[in-house]
């Protein structure tokens, strides 16, 4: 039930992000989600691609430093309080969220959030226990 996120080291240099999205687009790779964490000097780009293997290979060939990180995607009702409900559950179960971000657009009328936690297995079982279904890669259109 985990999804492969690609984490890429970003140098603080104009045009680097355009370069990355450019080479991926050239290979016909579509992005499902993207998130950037940065300091003034460098950053980490996290992305979810429809073909993670091809995306990773392409970026490695371009000389980028990257790692594959398992994350969990959860559908969140696209209405006020939808996200709060999920976060409440995680807080109650003592699950520390390292970071989270949203997936582009909606699938079946639902918004989706990606969660990065230390223990993904625990997160998945907690979600299930609370009637929140993690979304599979296939449902997000990931090969």
């Amino acid at each position, binding site marked *: 039930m985990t999804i492969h996120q690609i*984490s890429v080291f970003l*140098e603080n240099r104009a045009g*680097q992000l355009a370069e990355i999205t450019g080479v991926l687009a050239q290979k016909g790779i579509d992005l499902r989600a993207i998130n950037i964490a*940065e*300091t003034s000097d*460098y950053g*980490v780009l996290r992305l979810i691609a429809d073909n993670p293997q091809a995306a990773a290979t392409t970026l490695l060939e371009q000389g980028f*430093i990257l*790692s594959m990180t398992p994350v969990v995607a959860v559908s969140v009702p696209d209405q006020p309080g939808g996200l709060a409900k999920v976060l409440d559950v995680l807080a109650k179960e003592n699950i520390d969220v390292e970071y989270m971000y949203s997936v582009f657009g909606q699938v079946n009328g639902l918004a989706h959030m990606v969660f990065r936690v230390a223990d993904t297995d625990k997160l998945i079982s907690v979600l299930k226990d609370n009637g929140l279904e993690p979304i599979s890669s296939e449902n997000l259109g990931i090969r």
Partner: protein
Amino acid sequence: MERYYQPEIECASRETILAWQNERLCKQVKNVWDNVPYYRRKMEEKGLTPDDIRGVEDLHKLPFVTKDDLREAYPYGLVARPLRDCVRIQSTSGTTGKRVVAFYTQHDLDLWEDCCARAIVAAGGTHEDVCQVSYGYGLFTGGPGLNGGSHKVGCLTIPTSSGNTERQIMFIRDLNATILCCTPSYAAYLGETMKEMGLSPDEIPLKAGIFGAEAWSEEMRRSIQETLGIKAYDIYGLTELSGPGVAFECSEQSGMHINEDHFIAEIIDPQTGEVLPEGSQGELVFTSITKEAFPLLRYRTRDICVLSRKSCSCGRTHVKMSKPRGRSDDMLIIKGVNVFPSQIETVLLAQGYQANYQMIVDRVNNTDTLEVQVEMTPENFSDNLAQITQMEKSLVAALKAMLGIYAKVRLVAPKSIARSEGKAVRVIDKRKI
């Protein structure tokens, strides 16, 4: 069993070496007095004649020669032989001002190649070996010197020169090169590239490397030895004196034996010029006593190091010099503190980074600033920004502990710092007042 190229010289008694030095020094002083007006003038200014120099104990009376003197004398000012007797020039890769051009007679080339052959044999080389010379050929002395030494030892010599990494690796593998000669930064780069290709040290036929022309640290030695599966030996030299082979490492890998039959070494206080006792750290000064075409008396190398006459387990009797802490040309004074690039290298390797870095020195509001650009490595990368920030902080702390001043660290993308196929540009000093 330790092997020597010229055992009767390399293991001669101290008395014999001193006797050679006394005799050759007197002859050399007489030679430059007669043939180089520049030296004669400098000696006359000090009230000296050749009769005042009766041996090594009188060496300190002679004036120094500096790199500036060589530039001033460009091109023929210090040549001691008619040009018809000279057969070669080599030249330094001067970044500013005039180049330095050194001249060689056939005899000079012969002795220089002997020195390089001593280094190759000390690294375990025999006529059974295949020696790949990946130093630049041409005006740079690295390629021609080791090439000549390799021929003298009888190695099958592959003169790849520098650059074209793919072809370097192809020859190492296809022709089973056992000895590699190049700059340490290029050796590290070759090792890194072969590792990326999935080659384990067992699959690389190399057994030894002779690396010089750049400052490098013990940590860098360890990492090169590990990735290439070799023993890495240091070699020292200056174009002004001949080229590589002025000093070389033996099996002990703890300092380089200076070829004292050709060069007399002194350590001086770089500020006062005073000769310091054995074991003191100071600037290395060389006198070339066998050079015919381009003899140098008391040449200031700007290299800071220590000499040791402690007996060496390899059996060689010639004095050993420590790895230079850095050329004092490289030595930077930042916020009043002496900083050597080699110190930065030591910290980086200890913290799991590659030794590929660049120092940017600047002055902002009358205060010196130092920024160290370091390449991110796959091992140190994390999807968690806080973890990267933490590692950066620990690198800053380690640099502070080593240097005594704050250095800003800037993590950059891999391979974004220009790789050295010749000499690496480690320092960019923007302070121009």
